[in-house]
């Protein structure tokens, strides 16, 4: 296929950087734990995109296998994380991270 020949690699680096930064920005900005969780997913996907881009440009299949494993781990992580969030909501009545300040002195 000739598709990737037109697009410079720097574009993919830039796009992944911007997506990752938006994820970091969301984690810093929001108070709802579910939104923060979604921003973490966004960061994972930015890294995945970069993995696939490098895999395609280097002609190496192993990068795509890594992305496959990252997706598997992300699925497990989301299941456990959402269960923890459900427990937090059951115990404190909200998922606002500002209410979880028991560790703060």
């Amino acid at each position: 296929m000739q598709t990737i020949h037109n697009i410079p690699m720097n574009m993919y680096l830039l796009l992944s950087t911007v997506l990752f930064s938006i994820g970091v920005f969301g984690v810093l900005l929001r108070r709802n734990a579910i939104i923060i969780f979604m921003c973490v997913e966004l960061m994972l996907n930015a890294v995945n995109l970069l993995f696939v881009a490098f895999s395609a440009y280097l002609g190496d299949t192993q990068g795509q296998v890594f992305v496959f494993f990252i997706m598997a781990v992300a699925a497990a992580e989301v299941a456990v994380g959402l269960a923890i969030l459900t427990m937090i909501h059951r115990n404190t009545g909200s998922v606002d991270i500002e209410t979880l300040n028991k560790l703060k002195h």
Partner: protein
Amino acid sequence: MTLYLFYFLSFLAIISALMVVVSKNPVNSVLFLIITFFAIAGHYVLLNAQFLAAVHIIVYAGAIMVLFLYVIMMMNFSKESEPSKTKLSQIVATVAGGIFLITLIGALHFYDVDMSPGHSDPGAGLVGALGKVLFSKFLLPFEISSLLFLAAMTGVVLLGKKNNDNS
């Protein structure tokens, strides 16, 4: 042609990622995140990773986002609106995110990746080529990931069930 497609998908991904962060309603955030995931799947197709594009749509848009929607539905957020952070911490968050972005882009400028596409194998992203690598070189991680899923499933069931015995 593909360049325009790339720009369109990138624009869609970035705009909807921003909307995930700024929209007030969590359900809207989930829907915008699904749009972002579809745009990223389009990028995978552009990069000749067709199998990963399909898996991405199935796993993320099909499974993970449905989990998010279920949890939001169970928690019933629609009435209560999330209290936003104070102005100061909003400004601090914006500045910190912007500085992070600028730092990364500056680092990219120093390390100029001038990479020519390697020997492009049309079938590299299909199930056959990927499965050969996955089941020969990465067989042990593949089996260990099944253990990970077992542990995650057990943990979720343990976390999610109501404990009636201790009150």
